[in-house]
């Protein structure tokens, strides 16, 4: 996929833009640059299967918010979550910060590579289905290691579960996010271990 020649927000996005812009006082519309970049990225994902922000989209946002285009480029390139290059349909974001690493993020990464054929970070698989990115702490350390796919956290991962998840995604399925070890939230595996003497009411 290459840089599109034009970009325009579709009707679905326009409804959201109206709501977003209403949040800011007049003359401060530039504050909406982050939500609009996010909206543009989601629209690209929805319409083309690759959630990224092309330059023309940044220009459209700049014109919309009365900003110089370079100010939008600065914001979009500063935040890691905005993809300024095309990505695959599924964005595999592996947390490799210490707790996840201690709990086996290396195996998750290796499984991602095996299952998708991707060699390094920020690369996209040949079938353009997967892009693998290394991310910093996702804030779900109790359920480490975490593999974030687009917006969803898949927790308590290991190599086998990762490969199974990727295969399911490849088939077009959407496994339920959350703990893959079957626990509820971040409750202990195999049921409660404390407060056992509290009588049920």
């Amino acid at each position, binding site marked *: 996929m290459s840089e599109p020649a034009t970009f325009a927000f579709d009707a679905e996005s326009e409804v959201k833009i109206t709501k977003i812009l209403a949040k800011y006082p007049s003359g401060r519309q530039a504050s909406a640059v982050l939500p609009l970049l996010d909206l543009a990225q989601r629209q690209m994902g929805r319409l083309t299967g690759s959630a990224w922000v092309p*330059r023309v989209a940044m220009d459209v946002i700049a014109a919309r918010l009365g900003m*110089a*285009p*370079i*100010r939008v*480029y*600065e914001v979009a*390139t*500063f935040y890691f979550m905005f993809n300024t290059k095309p990505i695959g349909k599924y964005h595999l974001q592996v947390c490799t910060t210490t707790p996840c690493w201690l709990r086996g993020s290396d195996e998750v990464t290796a499984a991602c590579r095996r299952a998708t054929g991707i060699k390094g970070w920020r690369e996209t698989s040949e079938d353009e289905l997967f892009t693998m990115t290394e991310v910093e702490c996702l804030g779900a350390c109790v359920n480490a290691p975490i593999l974030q796919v687009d917006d969803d956290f898949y927790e308590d991962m290991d190599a086998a579960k990762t490969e199974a998840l990727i295969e399911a995604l490849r088939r077009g399925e959407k496994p339920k996010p959350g703990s893959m070890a079957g626990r509820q939230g971040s409750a202990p595996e195999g049921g409660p271990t404390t407060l056992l003497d509290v009588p049920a009411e």
Partner: protein
Amino acid sequence: MKVTVDGIEVEVPPGSNVLQACEAAGKEVPRFCYHERLSVAGNCRMCLVEIEKAPPKPFASCAYPAADGMVVHTDSPMVRAARRGVMEFLLINHPLDCPICDQGGECDLQDQAVGYGMDHSRYAENKRAVRDKDLGPLVKTVMTRCIHCTRCIRFSTEIAGVPELGATARGENMEVGTYVEKALSSELSGNLIDICPVGALTSKPYAFVARPWELTKTDSIDVMDAVGAAIRVDTRGPEVLRILPRLNEDVNEEWLADKSRFAIDGLRRRRLDHPWVRQGGKLVKATWNEAFDAIRNRLTGLDGTKIGAISGDLCDVESMVALRDLMVALGSPNLDCRQDGAALDASRRDFYTFNSTIAGIEEADALLLIGTNPRIEAPLINARLRKRWLQGEIPVALIGEAADLTYKVEMLENRPSTLAAIAAGTHPFAAVLKAAKKPMLILGQAALTRPDGAAVLAQAWALAASCGMLTPDWHGFNVLHTAAARVGGLDVGFLPGVGGRDAAAMLAGGVDALWLLGADEADVTKLPASTFVIYQGHHGDRGAARADVILPGCAYTEKEGTWVNTEGRVQRGQRAGDPPGQAREDWAILRAASAVLGRTLPYDTVAALRCSVETRHPVLRNLDILPRSGCSDTSGPASRGTLSDAPFCAAISNYYMTDPISRASATMAACTEAHSGKAMAAE
């Protein structure tokens, strides 16, 4: 507010920062990101100082407000250690390539590393490398050297008004650039080179040309537009290698427009370095005597009224006076310094000058632009207008061709009748001007070079009078010139005498012999073949192509001369280099010609000539000083003809090529190509 810096007590105005207080105390504070004319970024951390009774940490003095009774130390052990640490961090990634860096010898980082850094490096790791950016034909980038002070970003956003530079990505990956590869669309881009504290942004045409210590520096005055910016001409031997701005708060502050800075390679190309005489239809190299003989043969016996002279846009006052004196001696009333035919009225000085003054722009609170694009005609005045606009958005309206002036402009209907409507008070903008305390208008040359120029001038004055621009303590009527020589020419009366012909009449064949003093923008195509044309100037341009005799003169960097800027400020340029070949100073050529013609002019030195000029034109005595005055007499210039209905168009189509020097410049040609290409791509 009293602040004590290293034991020295100084008084600073409220709102000052600690760094300014240190400077007031005469203490040097190293800095990279801080710049007096830019917003405070506070990101280089080099200006750290220690403040007593504050948290025990070093403070970035540029971003810390001074307070009454504050005690500051700029040279304590903690400050020294902190600066050494900052410098060490800056040098983690900055290459030590000073020997091949054009900034070497005038580099803030180099100087401050010697002054405040360590004597060795503790880093064995590789330095980061950054891809260079293409910012067009003027600014060369070596982005690996960038220390991310963001001065260039702030300059282009704030001063130049073209927010195109930015810092993309972050942390180790942060890069300064345009993100989209493009030439900077600013006429002030050369200033990025000056404000860059390292060698990241350097001059592309000057790359690897010279070292600063090899250069002879001569203070002079710029003539590429009518602003009269203060410049420093750097030469090595006879060659002008670069031009830099000098500080002049009243005119250019510390900035310089690109044409003034980069057109200098035009001083070496297409130069006239010896006299030429047309023989049998072809120009043939000649000696000075042969050239003068040819002139004498043609002019002898010719009636004075059949001889005329037109002076060009770059002429100094001295040579114009010498030519006028020669013409008067020959009995000719046919003189004109307005080769574009601008209907300027020289009967009173405030009819043709920028009366509010450039510095006075900062006091104005409403602005009307008429037939002008100051961004192209005088980029530095436009920068001042933008500065005023940034201080508090003032109403600005334009009657003329639409253009991006880098500030908000209300477009009024582009017809001369709009002027009449505002003057009559029937137009809504009249109320805006009347409500303002110090309203001003700027009348461009495009509004005066039209057939109804005189009527436009009179109407503009009437507008100024009716909208409260002309008061005893404020003069809001301003003519913006494009030619450096124009105000000087009008001051010394280089104009048709009684019964004399103006430039248009002379160019239509009204005279049999025409002396062009550097006049290259005059349309010589309509001259009859029989007209004898003497071209005196420095470049083989349009005037020389039509000439029968060519007398090689000096460019502005090669002679000492007086120029009067659009404000009426009298300034003197100095000789920085020698003219090529047999070229001579223009007043001396005219003095020699007068002797050959038997009408010897009564001065033998430039000092004697200048003395004579100042005796006859006392206004030219006030060198560099321009007393600002209000308008004591509101009676306006005489009107001729009626206003037409034609819209005002642009005075200059291509900023980069307006005179013989810039037309000869390869750098300016590259700029023309870069910017016209971009305009086409945008369409």
